[in-house]
């Protein structure tokens, strides 16, 4: 058997196409990995998607996969597929800096469950992707190691917090990537970079090995070029994990056939009252176009009522910051990570290590979270926010009893210019206004490419699904792909990032 050793076709190439070629022996995993690194060396100096690379490990793993194929064994559904993993997910002997000076020196001693599952499926981690420090942010500008830039327009942010992962896929370094989504951190960069980006139902993907930001909201999710790749990666990483007590015992695999099923007769809800203020006119236009395309597919669109999203913002920032203040307490310079050289006694060890190690946004959130849990304030903030969260859950459940999914924009605007919102945390928080409710109610939600601004920036739309029902969401996205010209999609032939870095 003489497989070609030339690199694969110019990106974008889907993960399933690569895996198919590697499994069938048409393409060497080694060649796929080299092509990925070659692409990376071309785009990385401009875009800064990665915080560290796994070149030696990736090449060694590619050789193993090629040997397995040569020996007639199947390396799995993601055989030879290069993948970028957000650097708040641990890989043994690698890193989990969380884009923080605090964890820059830390070397993980174990693999996250998702990393183990990716490896077992034949995927090859090529590097760890940039993010907002501890996943707190919406632009990657909070990374202690500098922001990633949007491959569609490098004067703009790629979104965040999982910006590096989105950039890796949109710029053709890897066909898929993993991010984490606590309030929209997978979906919003997915929207800004023209990708399909899924936040699974809470508990469907193990959090073991994901450095916790807000434990009750965090979910790891995939970035992909289209719905089928997204489902493929989801099926690999999801499923019960005994190491995560919040992991769901329910079967949640989507399978290869679910996405082919027609969507005619399905019902989509549109929360019209959510779409009034602060929405970019181009986003409104793309929303209209998307509604039309779904109508063309035979889907019914109906207006639905949901609790106003402004309550979601305050609820979210109370709960997320409360959990974060406790989750980030372990980073104290005592056992691992950064320890201040200036420490003189225990208190100064804590104060200086944390003072030097954390960036301003992380400190702001720890302070807010500590405050809302304090004696005398707990009931007014944390306890009340939990009750409001329950109301949101009830509101979404009631609506989702009437419709198969809810359609809305992913973000109020396309990708914004670097520095535009860094001085105003509240306006940054508002860029998550449409995404955070999914984390509060724990249901799955997906962002998918649906159009482009007149300036050529991707604009994503979002679907909220019923409890545990990723399959319906991706089925709708797949149907939409069949009725859509690909404007603003990184998968479209000759999409701007591909052209710009060719």
């Amino acid at each position: 058997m003489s497989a070609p050793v030339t690199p694969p076709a110019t990106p974008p190439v889907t993960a399933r196409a690569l895996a198919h070629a590697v499994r069938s022996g048409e393409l060497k995993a080694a060649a796929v990995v080299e092509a990925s690194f070659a692409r990376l060396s071309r785009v990385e100096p401009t875009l800064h998607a990665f915080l560290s690379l796994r070149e030696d490990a990736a090449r060694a793993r590619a050789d193993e996969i090629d040997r397995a194929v040569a020996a007639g064994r199947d390396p799995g559904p993601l055989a030879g597929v290069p993948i970028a993993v957000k650097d708040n997910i641990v890989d043994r002997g690698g890193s989990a800096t969380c884009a923080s000076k605090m964890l820059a020196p830390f070397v993980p001693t174990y693999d996250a469950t998702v990393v183990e599952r990716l490896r077992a499926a034949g995927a090859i981690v090529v590097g760890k992707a940039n993010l907002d420090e501890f996943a707190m942010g919406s632009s990657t500008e909070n990374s202690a190691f500098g922001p990633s830039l949007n491959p569609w327009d490098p004067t703009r942010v790629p979104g965040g917090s999982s910006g590096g992962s989105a950039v890796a896929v949109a710029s053709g370094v890897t066909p898929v990537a993993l991010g984490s989504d606590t309030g929209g951190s997978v979906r919003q960069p997915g929207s800004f970079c023209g990708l399909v980006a899924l936040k699974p139902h809470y508990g469907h993907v193990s959090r073991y090995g994901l450095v916790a930001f807000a434990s009750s909201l965090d979910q790891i999710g995939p970035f992909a070029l289209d719905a089928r790749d997204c489902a493929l990666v989801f099926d690999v990483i999801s499923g019960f994990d005994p190491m995560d007590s919040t992991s769901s015992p329910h079967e949640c695999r989507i399978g290869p056939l679910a996405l082919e099923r027609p969507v005619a007769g399905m019902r989509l809800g549109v929360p019209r009252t959510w779409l009034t203020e602060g929405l970019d006119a181009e986003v409104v236009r793309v929303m209209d176009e998307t509604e039309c395309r779904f109508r063309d597919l035979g889907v019914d669109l109906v207006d639905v009522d949901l609790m106003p999203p402004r309550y979601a913002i305050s609820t979210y920032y109370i709960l997320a910051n409360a959990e974060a203040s406790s989750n980030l307490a372990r980073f104290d310079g005592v056992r691992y990570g950064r320890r201040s050289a200036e420490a003189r006694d225990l208190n100064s060890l804590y104060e200086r290590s944390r003072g030097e190690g954390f960036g301003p946004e992380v400190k702001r959130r720890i302070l807010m979270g500590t405050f809302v849990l304090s004696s005398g304030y707990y009931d007014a903030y944390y306890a009340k926010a939990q009750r409001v969260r329950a109301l949101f859950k009830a509101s979404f459940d009631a609506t989702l009893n009437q419709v198969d999914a809810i359609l809305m924009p992913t973000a109020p605007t396309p990708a914004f210019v670097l520095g535009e919102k860094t001085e105003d945390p509240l306006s940054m928080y508002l860029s998550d206004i449409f995404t955070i409710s999914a984390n509060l109610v724990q249901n799955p939600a997906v962002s998918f490419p649906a159009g482009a601004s007149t300036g050529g920036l991707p604009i994503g739309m979002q679907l909220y699904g019923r409890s545990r029902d990723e399959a319906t969401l991706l089925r709708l996205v797949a149907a939409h792909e069949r009725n859509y010209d690909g404007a603003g999609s990184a998968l479209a032939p000759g999409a701007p990032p591909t052209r710009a870095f060719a």
Partner: protein
Amino acid sequence: MTTDTTLDPAMRARWEPVIGLEVHAQLRTETKLFCGCPTKFGAPPNTQVCPVCLGHPGVLPVLNRRAVELAVRMGLATGCVVREDSIFARKNYFYPDLPKNYQISQYDRPICEGGALTIEAGGRTHGIGITRIHLEEDAGKSKHPEQAGDHSTRIDLNRCGTPLIEIVSEPDLRSAAQAHAYLTALKQLLQYLEVCDGNMEEGSLRCDANVSVRRAGTTPFGTRTELKNLNSFRFVERAIDFEIERQIRRLEAGGAVVQQTLLWNPSLGETRVLRSKEDAHDYRYFPDPDLPPLRVSSEWIDRVRGELSELPAAKRARFERDYALSFLDAGVLTQTRALADYYEAVAAGEGVDAKSAANWIASELLGQLNKRGLAIDESPVSVGEMQSLMQRLGERKLNGKLGKMALEEMIESGATIETIVARHGWEIVADDASLQAMVDQVIAASPTQVAEYRAGKESIYRYFVGQVMKLSKGQADAVRVDELIARALRGEP
């Protein structure tokens, strides 16, 4: 020892102490509360650890089912209500031996609530309320080498994540002696149930006390202080007594008790202030989002109830009834489950008199074992050998004196009773002719004593018995000798 100038009893009587105890008991599980690391005591520092108990980035807790079962067991044994839905909460505070800088514990919805424990103190029994029993993980240990030039702190995280229950009593205790009795009863119960090994030296059982005093006859509580580090039964009683007297002195002098946490220093025999109310931690408790509510089904609770072994109080009552033992002896023999089991096994032997076996085990065997620092389950005298000894005594093949010598030798050498009797040629002289001859000889040689006896000094009777035993080299049948001497002294043929 401190030489507390004792408080004027009249002054002391004007005040009533109010005490509640918080006891931490390490659960007897093989593995930790939220990971698979072993819980064995005494391993080299930082060898029983994994990413989870080290609080590494990204780890998550998974609850140990066995620990839940043990907590439920203790709850049921103290008559608590076991919650079918309890919540784990995070208790947030920074400490170097607490790797996550929060402890996973239970706060407003503990697993067990509202039980009681009966104690005996001052010749009376008292019911002491148990407010709650909750599950939590232990922290590690900070060690301060304190050698010249070395100001470092070393941290051993082996104990980190070890499962504990905290048993909180109501403020129902009224003296240090009652606190001691409560702790004794609690330890006995924990050991009986095999919930905790009760070893205070190794830290498996730890006690904090809340102490206040109030004017005798009044109901409102006084300001309390919390005493920490009461790590032996002796310290508990001494520290509480010290604190009661300190508070009374202060109040009598017109001062006020300040709410604070005090640390007992056993070598100085006094307390020092650890922190006052103003520096009290705000633990910022909130439900741990990594752990769903703990559901203990009623079926599970019933199963644990069904497996519950006989509790000490019930066993004691049964021993009194079934073996006709005194309250005191029954209490001694039911102190530990191992001792009670040993006694019952011996008493079940053919030809063993249960009451006499109780005396022999409670006084002779335990005395000998205690002298050597051995526990009952380390006894060199097996149940079978003890039965054999009891049978020989019952059949009067050995008298008490020889029996005691034999028992001591059995413990010392581990030899069987048969070997020992044969080695010494111990054979009880029981034929009346030989015994009568010895009795006659002693009576004849002791005219003064005989006269005294007949003049009414009956206590001298023991003298004659002793002389006869001496003459027989200890081998005379003591019961028969008694009879023969009595007859001789009465002047009967």
